[in-house]
């Protein structure tokens, strides 16, 4: 993807300075950004240093207390232990990989060990953190942040797994069918999101459609609990955000030049190899756009977790919403919101920095 980006920017020729006309065209967007992004964020930032008020929601002050509460009870030692644990597993994996096929050249071995090391480390760390979430993250709110990231990440992964084949199929379908298929993806948007969520409630509850069907088909003898569980939350999230994954991937697939795929086959690549080396890299921009469109909103989602999780699977969006609502603690809610914003900003900065590094190398 980085290479693709680099070529696409360089193909546009030398960068030109925008003229005053260009700036004029930007005015509506700049005003929009100012009114709906910059100003609210600034207000949030000011609130986050305030105190909970009585008759007014916020008493202005300067205190770090709200931020302290966000990180309250956090201990670094368990996290460190967890990282070391993952590092140990990684070391074993690298050693196994190193002595796997001794006939390879040295630089092949190094590259392979690096790849395996990074993959194993990330997988091991995620697995250890997820299975010991409450021990690793002792702070209540830090734990909720981490849990939200996991839920959003899992939702995104499911959306990719389910959405990619669908998008590929639609993108490669005959043109006459394509619009119809796209329409089918869009139709749910014609109904209110809340009504669709309530529909899931009637499907998943214990006297609902799914249990009724399974009982009727004698697959189960007792109705099983599905609503108000973490599983229900993920179902709701995947269902709501799937179109946001399908549409951008469809966009990339539609533009995919079929002659490149044919060339891959002509050069002797099997379906897996062709997919891996040609199709996937060329559709990656769509996947990345989809990942952003699904991951970011699902971290902050609160309606689905409330309605389908029974408010027992809190994500960070629920906690923030609760602070601005019943708990009446706007400053703390603002501090949580600012922390979330900061996490995104850092993640974004980190990812662009990495991309720059790659494109310089490429």
């Amino acid at each position, binding site marked *: 993807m980085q290479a693709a980006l680099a070529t696409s920017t360089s193909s546009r020729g030398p960068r030109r300075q925008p003229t005053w006309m260009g700036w004029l065209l930007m005015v509506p967007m700049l005003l929009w950004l100012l009114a709906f992004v910059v100003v609210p964020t600034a207000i949030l930032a000011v609130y986050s240093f305030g105190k*909970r*008020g*009585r*008759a*007014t*929601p916020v008493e202005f002050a300067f205190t770090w207390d709200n931020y302290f509460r966000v990180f309250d009870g956090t201990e670094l030692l368990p996290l460190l232990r967890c990282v070391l644990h993952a590092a140990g597993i990684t070391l074993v994996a690298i050693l196994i990989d190193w002595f796997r096929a001794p006939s390879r050249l040295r630089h092949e071995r190094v590259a392979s060990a690096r790849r395996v090391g990074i993959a194993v480390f990330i997988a091991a760390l995620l697995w250890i953190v997820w299975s010991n979430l*409450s021990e690793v993250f002792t702070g*209540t*709110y830090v*734990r*909720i942040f981490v849990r939200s990231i996991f839920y959003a990440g899992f939702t995104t992964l499911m959306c990719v797994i389910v959405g990619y084949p669908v998008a590929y199929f639609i993108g490669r379908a005959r043109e006459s069918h394509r619009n119809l298929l796209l329409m089918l993806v869009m139709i749910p948007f014609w109904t209110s999101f809340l009504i669709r969520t309530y529909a899931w409630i009637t499907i998943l*509850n*214990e*006297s*609902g459609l799914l249990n009724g069907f399974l009982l009727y088909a004698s697959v189960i003898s007792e*109705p099983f*609990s599905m*609503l*108000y569980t973490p599983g229900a939350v993920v179902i709701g999230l995947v269902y709501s955000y799937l179109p946001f994954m399908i549409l951008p991937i469809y966009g990339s697939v539609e533009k995919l030049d079929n002659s490149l795929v044919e060339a891959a086959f002509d050069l002797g690549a099997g379906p897996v190899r062709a997919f891996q080396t040609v199709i996937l890299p060329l559709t990656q921009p769509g996947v990345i756009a989809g990942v952003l469109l699904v991951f970011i909103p699902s971290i902050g989602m609160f309606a689905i977790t409330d309605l389908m999780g*029974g*408010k*027992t699977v*809190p994500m960070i969006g629920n*906690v923030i919403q*609760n*602070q*601005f*609502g*019943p*708990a*009446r*603690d706007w400053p703390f809610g603002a501090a949580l919101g600012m922390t979330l914003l900061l996490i995104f900003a850092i993640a974004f900065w980190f990812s662009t920095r990495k991309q720059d590094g790659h494109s310089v190398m490429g």
Partner: protein
Amino acid sequence: MNRRKFLTTTAAATAALALPAHAQARSTLNIFCWSEYIPQSVIDGFSKANRVRVNVENYASNEEMLAKLAAGTARYDLIQPSEYVVEELVKDGRLEEIDMANIPNLKNLDPKYTKLSYDPENKYSVTWMAGNVGIIVNRSKIKDEIKGYSGVFQDKFKKRIVVLDDSRELVAWALASLGLDINDITPENLEKAKGVLEKWLPLVKLFDSDSPKTALLNGDVDLGLVWNGEAAKVLEESKASKRRNMEFEYILPAEGAHMFIDSLAIPKGARNKANAEKFINYVLEPKVSVAIWEEFPYTLVNAEGKKLLKPEQLANPASFPPGDPKLDLFKMISPDRAAAIDKLVTDLKNV
């Protein structure tokens, strides 16, 4: 529509856009009330009889209402606070005095529910309905004897429990189960309540203040602590339902239950005070009060209305608890303590 009328209408519409305060003063009423508490039929009836456009917005907890009220972004003419919130609002001078001369139907109220401790001269509030919070059990699924809070929160009922999503309620139950006064919110008592709630909250499957009856009737949960009006509805609907596993019982906790008295009140700065008073008077009519009760069967406080009820309606144990149970009202607590309660429950719910 002739041209002249068209012009005046357009002018009025423009004025309404520019100066909503003046244009709205005549014919609207903005109600901010609990969800599932004022039947649509009653709102329509009032709207038709008085040619008033009624806007309704809902909340699911007193604290949510206070938050919106404090934000000051929306103007309401009529709110529905519970006893301790009336006390707080009166103390802060955030309620308009109601002109009782405009409310002749006040005489229909059961005198037990007038001039209450939080508004001794009956200047700021008119009682809407009373109720309590008790235990509802699906008897076709749970045969155990359940007397109080500790009977509900048992490990064997893990993930079969529904409770109200209301921090103050949760803390009050924990205090009552320890034999403490539910209004004695000291840091020490909160610490004790924390110990109890730490064990209770992981057992809960669903937090729902809006409509806990849905999950009970769908069979997603088997027992819980809910508003008595919701419980009465569950008893009524389960009797009418032909589905199996639908036999419910309502029990008031032996340790003492929370009784609430919800009022109608007019917040300071309401733009349509006259309409709000008209509405209060309207709902105090015996027939209207019965219509409200039939949809939301809490404890009816309208003495004249109660005379219209059938014996089997009066026998609903959730609406009109038999005997002389121990019931306590909530009292106003300081904002620091309210904050401490919110923090405690938020922290525990998110473990």
